[in-house]
């Protein structure tokens, strides 16, 4: 039994079958990659996991509990955090504040009215946020506006925001999209470090096979909304169906 | 039954005005992404185009008539419009009588120019600014425009009657087999309704069947992509602003015989037309028209005595009540698209 169990999930958009009977099992503390050609339904699947979309049928179990139909913030509170393809950060807030907010969320739950206490008085929150930012090498930019960061820094900030919550499952949507090779390698190292030092399960959507094969312990291949194969990286590499799916896409 | 029919007719008419204003408003919003609080002022300017033309046509020279006296006992100065002097009292009088329909011809170029000037001179610089800034600057413009009109035309309503032959009412009931005098509908309101339908049809046909319109519609759906295709969408949007201004202006011109225009008529309609646009769905043209007629008819029904007897004061709040219910049950209005104006 994995920490995340997706069973027979279907999702239609009008005439398009975006997800067809998807099954997925992510083992605790593993790094699980989901790959597939464009339009294979990877992002739709992720959206179903975090509550942005509700599947038409099927079940999604996290740690033995169903998260289906629950609101995004409730799902997050169970321990699922998500990093987006384009970083979703609080652009108008400072870097430090960006990370403090998830710290508050983790400590206080979905809502708590701290209207009179000052932010500065929250020493524990601040220290926790700073620690995470040091881990992400953002300690020099604590007081800058998040919107002023470079694209790579924004990604790391978003990662920091997710890590600050100490999630049990981290969903990453193409964490290296648009990055230069050197940055990609840095990100791989970062993720490896997270994998090795924290007990976090990761599910990664990725196009870059270099990233996938450097990190993943198991890989699920999606094609046209349906799971094609699920196996170890070694076995996936030479799998004929996978090559067909990708080549097929290359042809048209 | 007859009362209900009568109120539907009335509602169509009110709905026509709402629909025309809302159409322009949503067109501007859909194409330019601008929340235009000065749109009511455009409606008002249109109405004052009719007043202005009336003034021009009745521009007079004075002759002193010694046989009569004015209110101070001085010899009366008689004013004769030049038009009557040139074309004779008969033809001249007819031209003056037809000043409201004639004002359509006058208003089209005027309103399009005003629209162009507004877009080029002001609105253009606000595409990238927050909606709050757009609201403030256009609201400021609306105040300025109405104060200017008040300065020249005063605060009281100015009568602008329909042509003689359109006064009076059509006995609609007889056509439908009712007794005479049961369902009465003024001719001019019929004209207004047909006029509104023509304009609405024209705008839709223009957007649907011309390449210009297709580009604009594509731009409404996805502005960046159209821009990427190398099409100068901005120029087309300027033209759309002019068209929207003209639609609002014509709605105003033709409305003058129904309500004597005054300087704040734009503000009176502004809030309602925003409600109409939102109920229809921001950026949806059919939605604006549908919501305009829907709210117009509902407003008419709510003012029936039978309805008010059950729900006192319902006619005061019906539009807002309907807006609340629709927005709570259909989050993006009747025909709105996802993601518009929700950030």
């Amino acid at each position, binding site marked *: 039994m994995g920490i995340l169990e997706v069973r027979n999930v279907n999702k239609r958009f009008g005439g398009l079958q975006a997800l067809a009977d998807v099954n997925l099992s992510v083992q605790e503390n593993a790094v699980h990659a989901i790959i597939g050609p464009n339009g294979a339904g990877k992002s739709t699947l992720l959206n179903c996991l975090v509550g942005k979309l509700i599947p038409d049928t099927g079940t999604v179990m996290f740690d033995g509990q169903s998260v289906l139909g629950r609101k995004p913030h409730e799902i997050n509170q169970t321990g699922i955090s998500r990093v987006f393809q384009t970083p979703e950060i609080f*652009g108008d807030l400072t870097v430090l504040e960006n990370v403090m907010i998830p710290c508050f969320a983790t400590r206080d739950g979905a809502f708590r009215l701290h209207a009179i206490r000052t932010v500065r008085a929250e020493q524990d929150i601040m220290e926790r946020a700073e620690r995470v930012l040091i881990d992400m090498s953002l300690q020099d930019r604590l007081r800058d506006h998040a919107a002023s960061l470079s694209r790579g820094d924004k990604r790391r900030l978003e990662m920091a925001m997710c890590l600050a919550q100490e999630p049990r499952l981290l969903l990453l949507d193409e964490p290296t999209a648009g990055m230069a090779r050197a940055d990609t390698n840095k990100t791989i190292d970062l993720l490896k470090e997270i994998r090795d030092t924290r007990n976090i399960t990761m599910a990664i959507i990725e196009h870059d096979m270099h990233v996938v094969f450097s990190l993943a312990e198991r890989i699920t291949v999606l094609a046209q909304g349906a799971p094609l194969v699920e196996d170890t990286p070694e076995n996936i590499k030479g799998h004929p169906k996978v090559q067909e799916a990708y080549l097929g896409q290359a042809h048209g | 039954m007859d009362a209900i029919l009568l109120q539907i007719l009335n509602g169509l008419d009110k709905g026509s005005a709402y629909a025309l204003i809302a159409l322009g408003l949503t067109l501007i919003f859909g194409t330019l992404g601008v929340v235009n609080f000065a749109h009511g002022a455009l409606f008002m300017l249109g109405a004052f185009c009719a007043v202005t033309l009336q003034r021009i046509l009745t521009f007079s020279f004075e002759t002193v008539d010694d046989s009569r006296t004015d209110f101070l006992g001085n010899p009366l100065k008689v004013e004769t419009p030049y038009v009557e002097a040139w074309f004779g009292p008969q033809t001249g009088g007819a031209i003056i009588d037809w000043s409201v329909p004639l004002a359509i011809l006058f208003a089209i170029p005027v309103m399009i120019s005003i629209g162009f000037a507004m877009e080029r001179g002001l609105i253009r610089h606000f595409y990238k600014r927050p909606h709050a800034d757009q609201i403030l600057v256009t609201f400021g413009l609306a105040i300025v425009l109405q104060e200017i009109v008040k300065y020249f035309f005063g605060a009281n309503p100015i009568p602008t009657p329909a042509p003689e032959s359109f006064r009076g009412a059509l006995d609609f009931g007889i056509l439908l087999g009712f007794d005479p005098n049961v369902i009465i509908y003024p001719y001019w309101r019929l004209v207004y309704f047909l006029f509104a339908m023509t304009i609405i049809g024209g705008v839709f046909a223009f957007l649907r069947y011309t390449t210009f319109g297709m580009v604009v519609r594509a731009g409404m759906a996805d502005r960046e992509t159209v821009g990427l295709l190398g099409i100068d969408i901005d120029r087309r949007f300027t033209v759309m602003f002019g068209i929207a201004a003209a639609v609002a202006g014509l709605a105003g011109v033709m409305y003058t015989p129904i309500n004597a225009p005054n300087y704040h008529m734009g503000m009176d309609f502004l809030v309602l037309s925003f409600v109409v646009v939102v109920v229809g769905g921001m950026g949806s043209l059919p939605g604006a028209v549908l919501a305009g007629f829907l709210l117009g008819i509902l407003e008419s029904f709510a003012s029936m005595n039978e309805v008010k007897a059950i729900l006192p004061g319902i006619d005061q709040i019906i539009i807002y009540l309907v807006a609340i219910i629709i927005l709570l049950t259909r989050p993006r209005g009747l025909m709105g698209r996802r993601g518009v104006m929700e950030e």
Partner: protein
Amino acid sequence: MAGLDARDTRFLLIVVALTLFTPILLQPFPESSSLAQFNAGYPDLMQRFAIFGIFAIGFNILFGLTGYLSFGHAAFLGVGSYATVWMFKLLSYNVLPGLILAVITSGLFALLIGYISLRRSGIYFSILTLAFAQMSFNLAYSVLTPITNGETGLQVYTDDPQYLLAEGGLTTTHIFGLAMNKSLVAPVGGWEFTFNVGYYFCAVIAIAAFYLSLRIFRSPFGMMLRAVKSNQQRMSYTGLNTRPYTLAAFVISGMYAGLAGGLMASMDPLAGAERMQWTASGEVVLMTILGGAGTLMGPVLGAGFIKYFENIFSKINDNVLHGWFAFLPDGLEDLLVTIVHPFVGKGWHLTLGLLFMLVVIFLPGGLVEVGQRLRRLFTRRGGTPDAADPRHAPKSAPHVAE
């Protein structure tokens, strides 16, 4: 001091000083000078500055922090006024019960309207609040007349019960015997300063309201609200439910509006329905944006700016104009009067409209941007270029780490 860091404390002290010295600051011209027309240091207007300052500060907690643009806040102001006048009618002219009831009822009303309206966002939210407020106004003006006294405005009649009014008790509004309309007038040289009880009562409450809003801005709650404005989606994916945060902000700002309404009735015990109309809601939006939304001081500046125009510019008539230009030759005098005439007196709306446009076009950050630009101009010379004003923009309030 009081849970604030040094810079905020300094800022608060400046605000306190400005507020307390308002009766002096607003009388810059000697009584005999022809510019005395522009003096604004009389009780009614000073009270209005404080009251609308509170209204705008409260509105800013909602709009400035969360970005939710309410077009119906005047409804809460009106409810607050009605509640207060009813307390006058039922109990006595002591303003305290009225103000408490005003804050409570407007808070409850805001809870109801906010709970429904906050189900939607963006312009849909704006229209929902507008619809509620217009409904309130229309009903208050007509069918609710037994409660609101309709067009005439709710007022106290001599035959009202006033159960707590002692024999020979004060028949004007007061706080424990201190009448609001009592004034101390100090002539100093050619100047004359009026220190009015009502104004100082409003001013003390306004300072408290300002202090509270400062604390909210600097609190984790304030940070959450700014986060809502910045990125709601990320809030949800961070495990935070945005609805209670926005609702709390809505209710708090509704209570501020109710307090302002209660104070209006306390200074002048009559509540007219017009103060609930959409134009009144629009006015506070204009005040906030004009002054600088999301900044602490901006809304107060905006409120003062608009009220000053409404009360001072509208009173400049041709007679006054001729007085000003009397030193000029007749022809020139008439010419100048003709040129200025459309912009003052009954034309003050025109000037206000033009000013809105100019401010929005050239000062997108509102009036506080003038201050910021000036400050930048000076600090650049001083060598610390980006010492953005700590008072204002939450954007530049990075001292959480200090």
